[in-house]
């Protein structure tokens, strides 16, 4: 199996541990990731608020880079917003006659062109559908037994496109968590919004949403995420949320590939666990009780 790997901008900065752990897990699974040289921003949630055409051209530029590489494979995208944007291009080509021509008129400025047809897939889709729980279980060296993990899917990995799981009651992460030897925290918040970009522009509103998520996660040892935006909203404002809510809502929040990597026996440095903003002492202690590979800091 091989994929074009589109890490996206966040994974070069605040979500570096998502990038490193995704690559480490894929390597352990024997999956080849082809990085696109000279990839650029997908437009995030900014382009669509300013220009319809720009919001198509920015992701299409990356698809065009892949198209000229003479490799027949799908995109693998860990960031939910990048995934939505790249996939959006092909989703719109069918219904919007003339869109492709317009996109190519712009891309021609860089002597690039795109004809459609490259599939954009979310990391979660690839893990759950292409790789699957069995293949993951076969690589597990140190079971995460005794850990209770709340699977958090967020929005844009599932909506509006998704197609690999139920967009309201997703469950595809559950067999993966069980394959690691961990227990699934039962909750109904997996597909609820974290507030996304409102954390920058309407903080008090986003705090309400993250607060509801953190409260529902009580009883779990850790929340598993598959999006850098969800991760940041859940792990970086816990103090403020706890203060507003009048109770301690701190909990570990780790990226799904970090958890998979732990079970594969990869080390702290391979998974960049030191970069996480919410990797609590209680989780470290719990892991230390029965794990050899991971030493608590």
């Amino acid at each position: 199996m091989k994929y074009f790997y589109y890490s996206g901008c966040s994974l070069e900065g605040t979500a570096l541990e998502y990038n490193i752990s995704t690559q480490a897990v894929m390597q352990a699974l024997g999956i080849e990731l082809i990085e696109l040289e000279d990839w650029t921003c997908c437009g995030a949630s900014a382009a669509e608020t300013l220009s319809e055409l720009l919001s198509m051209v920015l992701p299409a530029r990356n698809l065009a880079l892949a198209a000229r590489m003479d490799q027949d494979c799908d995109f693998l995208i860990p960031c939910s917003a990048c995934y939505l944007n790249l996939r959006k291009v092909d989703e719109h080509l069918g219904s919007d006659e003339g869109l492709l021509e317009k996109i190519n008129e712009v891309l021609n400025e860089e002597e690039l062109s795109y004809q459609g047809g490259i599939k954009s897939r979310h990391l979660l889709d690839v893990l759950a559908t292409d790789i699957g729980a069995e293949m993951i279980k076969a690589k597990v060296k140190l079971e995460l037994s005794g850990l209770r993990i709340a699977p958090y899917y967020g929005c844009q990995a599932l909506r509006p496109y998704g197609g690999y799981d139920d967009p309201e009651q997703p469950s595809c992460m559950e067999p993966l968590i069980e394959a690691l030897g961990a227990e699934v925290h039962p909750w109904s918040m997996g597909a609820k919004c974290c507030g996304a970009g409102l954390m920058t522009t309407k903080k008090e509103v986003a705090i309400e949403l993250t607060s509801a998520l953190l409260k529902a996660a009580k009883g779990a040892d850790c929340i598993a995420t598959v999006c850098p935006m969800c991760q940041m909203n859940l792990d970086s404002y816990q103090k403020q949320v706890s203060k507003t809510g009048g109770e301690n809502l701190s909990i570990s929040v780790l990226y799904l590939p970090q958890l998979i990597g732990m079970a594969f026996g990869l080390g702290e440095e391979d998974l960049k666990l030191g970069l996480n903003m919410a990797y609590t002492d209680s989780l470290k202690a719990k892991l230390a009780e029965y794990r050899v590979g991971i030493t608590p800091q």
Partner: protein
Amino acid sequence: MSEENVTLAEVHEVADPMRVIQEKLRACMQCGTCTGSCANSFAMDHTPRQLWRMVQLGLTDELFNSKTFSLCSSCYYCTLRCPRGLPLTETIHALKQLAVAKGIAEKKGARFYQTFLDTVRRYGRVREMELMARYFIIMKSPMLPLSFTPLGMRLMIKGKVSPEMPKFFGPGKMDAIFRKVKELEASS
């Protein structure tokens, strides 16, 4: 000269973006499933259902004075559940675009996204600390950076980001693409 003006006016008449949005929402039957599904409706002055009605009735002043569309976090629940299958989240984006084009967009959100895209135009990718520094400079609000300082400090201590002063002049990596998009949009 006058002939050209007439032609331009006609073009604008045909491509009036508000008309395009109204057309998209024509089938809205005001059931309110969108409002019931909206994560942020608790903070809105008008519910999403009310917003669509304002669009249908052409109440543009009320519409653009409403805080509703700046409170959309693009969770796509309304789009998913709309029994008419209307592209509601995309409509919010179209309204945001229109507010920016009319120069009446809410300052904080619009400036943030403009700053974001300016960073993309210049470097091709977003550099998070450069973006935030650029945003603070453009907002000219001395208090704004303070609310982000604790997180910024923690990210720097972790070594995930480093402080970066934005450049405001000189050519950008994606100038040609941005210029061409503007050119095509002006002529459509």
